[in-house]
């Protein structure tokens, strides 16, 4: 028996619905159909009157969730794809994100964003928006990379009183499996050393953690370099203690992400490390992101658009050569 990443997301929602009557699910095609990716399969039947199909109205979906949160509920909104949250952008960044600061009333909503690229998905079903939302004050942005984190961080995220963007990676949905969901359970706001090493640190999150580990394995085999991989787990808040401690050990930093290359998570990580840990660095910190074009449709272009174990190895070799 094994559990996939998407199983974990479904199980977390089942547990939440079962244990907290304030939780309900709202989104397109999530009730009897079980969602475009089946993340809510069976939940409408198991929890009657708690799982609702919405019209194609992302702005209103989030607006409704915010209103319900004011009334004490803990709605989970499923975007069919993260990319469509651009329609709900205003409700997320202006209504939900500002509400606590303005009124003192927090907004415990969780918006699930099926994120990241898969082959053939093209420019509008592949985006990684964590770096966009993290720019706004008042939002918490989670980016689980493991089956166990997918489970625990969804549960812990819903328990937070503030608005949470839960960025789940579509590529991991069925590809990533674990024996059980009872992995190590860290609190939100704490990063994880996924793979210890001593020659360089790769700071990654979500699907890129796995690509980083692959690259690290390859470099170890090829040339004996021991690469440490840090999984941020949440990009806002950012656990700089763990990141800086790792850079203190290795002296070298590669910030790795799947989003577009201007700004975003990797820029924030590099900036924070250089501001706060400049003296720890033995070489210029590097970034590796997707290319500065929309995510291409064709699998051959897609594979060259995002970082791969090959391009990560290249970047690490450059980093290690300083």
């Amino acid at each position: 028996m094994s559990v996939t990443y998407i199983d974990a997301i479904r199980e977390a929602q089942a547990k939440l619905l079962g244990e907290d009557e304030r939780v309900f699910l709202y989104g397109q095609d999530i009730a009897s159909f079980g969602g475009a990716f089946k993340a809510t399969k069976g939940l409408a039947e198991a929890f009657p009157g708690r799982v609702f199909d919405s019209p194609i109205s992302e702005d209103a979906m989030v607006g409704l969730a915010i209103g319900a949160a004011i009334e004490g509920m803990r709605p989970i909104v499923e975007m069919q794809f993260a990319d469509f949250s651009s329609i709900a952008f205003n409700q997320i960044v202006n209504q939900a994100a500002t509400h606590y600061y303005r009124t003192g009333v927090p907004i415990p909503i969780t918006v699930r964003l099926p994120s990241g690229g898969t082959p053939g998905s093209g420019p509008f079903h592949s985006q990684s928006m964590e770096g966009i939302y993290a720019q706004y004050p008042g939002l918490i942005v989670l980016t689980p990379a493991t089956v166990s984190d997918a489970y625990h961080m969804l549960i812990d995220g819903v328990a937070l009183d503030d608005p949470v963007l839960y960025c789940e990676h579509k590529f991991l949905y069925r590809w990533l499996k674990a024996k059980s969901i009872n992995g190590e359970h860290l609190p939100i706001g704490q990063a994880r050393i996924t793979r210890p090493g001593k020659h360089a640190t790769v700071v990654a999150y979500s699907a890129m953690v796995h690509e980083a580990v692959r690259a690290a394995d390859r470099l170890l085999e090829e040339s004996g370099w021991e690469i440490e991989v840090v999984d941020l787990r949440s990009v806002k808040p950012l656990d700089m203690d763990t990141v800086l401690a790792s850079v203190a050990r290795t002296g070298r930093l590669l910030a790795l992400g799947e989003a577009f290359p201007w700004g975003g998570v990797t820029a924030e990580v590099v900036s924070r490390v250089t501001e706060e840990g400049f003296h720890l660095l033995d070489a210029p910190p590097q970034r590796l992101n997707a290319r500065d074009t929309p995510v291409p449709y064709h699998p051959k272009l897609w594979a060259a658009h995002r970082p791969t174990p090959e391009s990560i190895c290249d970047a690490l070799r450059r980093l290690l050569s300083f």
Partner: protein
Amino acid sequence: MLRSRILENKLSSLYKAGKIVGGVYLGKGQEAVSASLGTALNPETDVFSALIRDQAGRIAFGEPLLDCTRSYLGSVEGPMRGRDGNIHRGRPKEGMPAMISHLGSQVSLVTGMLFAKRLKDPTSRAVGATCVGDGATSTGSFHEGLNVAAVEKLPLVVVVANNQFAYSTPNYRQFACGDLVERARGYGVGGFSVDGTDLIACATVMREAVRRARSGDGPQMVVAQVLRLSGHGEHDDGSYVPEDLRSGHYGRDCIEVAIRQLTDRGIVTVDEIMAWQEQNAEEVQRAVAQAQQEQAPDPYQEDWSALSTRFPLCQSGNQPIAQ
């Protein structure tokens, strides 16, 4: 509505005297619409998401005068503590959400409050109301919100105060149907038209719309024809409103109309109105004076956090204030 007018006149003079920073947005001429909506609701159970020109409705729904003066004058004691101001105020936990500026956005928010109330108590008879302008009906957010409320058959009352202009933009540059009430059918919601300068007509229609919503007929849309008797904000003289409109039927002052209606019918006497006026003027004066003597927010005391959650492992990244 009388109190609202007195308060707004006061806000206008404070603005012109430079005592209010930002803007002042008045509901002059729209008091009958707003107040009769506020009156038709039950402040104990219902929701009223006031918009730009709803001072009268706020008062009718029970918002304390001090909430207004403190927000405008930036007192740290107000519900927004200086973090937001003027019309962007509210007490969400008391059925008064605080509007964001983005027009149309409150429709789905009120819908969500009603959705939650029904989930928590299927026998809930709470109604939720919000006002929008003619301009706000062009927003996608208005459309999505009203449609969702209709699909869910929630007890939402949306009042469109069609004051013929959105800032300077006249109706014919905003929509192409004859009357916005023609939209109701397309959403599958109830529709009402009313002369917004006629208090008794407004009171009747609002009561009926709220009654229908409360009794399970789903969302109701009321379109009131009015004219604002001020600029868009107090910085604006509204000179784009043509003279014939100002001097026409909707240019009449709903408060004068209401006074005539009430005195003609013998419901109140002119003396009583004079007495109210005086009493309200005093209350307004007190609310202004109190807000003015209260502290402004202090950046050194301010809790600069947009989250209610604290993450002990993560620093805030916020810089200290320069000395």
